[in-house]
């Protein structure tokens, strides 16, 4: 598939597979699943700024879809919401300008790879920590709200990362909640709108690439939804979250000028995710009649 703005070719099957893997991770791990999109696209030959711009457009679609699914939105005071969104927007504009400035200096790709190399293992560590009894969520202080929103905006506008936005006064997500970070995604809509517009105007949003990723993401999310019913949250975070450091290693290989090895590692990771999903679903389906028999026997005895 030819990308007219980036003037390069990418494998469309690989793009759908990347979307599928990301969709699976998003459903099972929450917003950290989106972190694999930019590294995987970059490894498969999409220029870094185009990968960020296209991921920004995809995050905009996901945020809008999340809002339509749950129109009640984040339950916080309007003044706090306005300040948080304004800070995130300022961060987003600064991040986008910074990335375009780095592109002029030919430093955009190494800077992005470094940022993701740090972010992916950190996200995995946080996911594992959330699963532990003493893990819970990090303490939130009202004074940290604005810098955190600024950082989340900077990460989305400059790197296409969907970081959670801690809003002062918002209800604390439970430590073992399903996708507890998902409700913060609609807060990033203004930043995602700006990023999509600005990167689009700079010729860094490929709508063909976006469409293929969206198709993969929808399929992956549905597969993840099937698995979600049959697999405990802690197991999911441990087993499927391990894909995040694998993507970090692939990025390192790409930075060391070993693109084939990096590409194979990404494909192998997605393949393992698919095999794991199939295995767990098959095990759950096979176990279901036995469980039903046990329940029937139990009822008969009672």
């Amino acid at each position, binding site marked *: 598939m030819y990308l007219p703005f980036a003037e390069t070719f990418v494998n469309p099957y690989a793009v759908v597979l990347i979307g599928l893997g990301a969709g699976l991770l998003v459903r099972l791990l929450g917003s950290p699943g989106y972190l694999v999109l930019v590294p995987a696209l970059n490894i498969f030959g999409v220029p870094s700024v185009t990968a960020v711009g296209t991921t920004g457009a995809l995050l*905009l*679609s996901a945020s809008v879809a999340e*809002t339509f699914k749950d129109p009640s939105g984040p339950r916080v005071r309007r003044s706090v919401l306005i300040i948080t969104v304004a800070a995130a927007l300022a961060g987003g504009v600064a991040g986008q300008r910074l990335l375009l400035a780095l592109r002029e200096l030919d430093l955009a790709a190494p800077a992005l790879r470094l940022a993701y190399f740090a972010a992916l293992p950190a996200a995995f560590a946080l996911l594992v920590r959330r699963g532990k009894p003493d893990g819970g969520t990090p303490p939130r202080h009202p004074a940290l709200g604005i810098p955190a929103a600024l950082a989340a905006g900077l990460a989305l506008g400059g790197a296409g990362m969907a970081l959670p936005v801690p809003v002062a006064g918002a209800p604390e997500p439970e430590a073992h909640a399903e996708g507890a970070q998902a409700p913060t995604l609609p807060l990033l809509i203004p930043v995602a709108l700006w990023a999509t517009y600005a990167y689009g105007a700079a*010729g860094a949003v490929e709508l063909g690439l*976006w469409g293929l990723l969206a198709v993969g993401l929808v399929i992956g999310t549905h597969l993840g939804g099937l698995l979600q019913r049959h697999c405990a949250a802690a197991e999911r975070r441990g087993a499927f979250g391990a894909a995040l450091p694998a993507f970090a290693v692939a990025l390192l290989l790409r930075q060391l000028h070993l693109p084939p090895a990096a590409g194979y590692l990404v494909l192998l990771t997605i393949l393992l995710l698919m095999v794991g999903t199939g295995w767990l679903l098959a095990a759950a389906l096979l176990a279901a009649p036995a469980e039903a028999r046990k329940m029937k026997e139990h009822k008969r005895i009672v």
Partner: protein
Amino acid sequence: MMEELLAAGSTLLAHDPRLYGLLAVAVAVGAGALAGTVAAVLGHLREG
């Protein structure tokens, strides 16, 4: 007809790149709204 429309669209976009930014926003928001609505309707049907 379709080719003429595509050629006219390309000329327009080449004239002002900001239009492509607006087009990207419109496509992303439209697709997100459609996906969210379908998911909400399917959720209601499943609950019902």
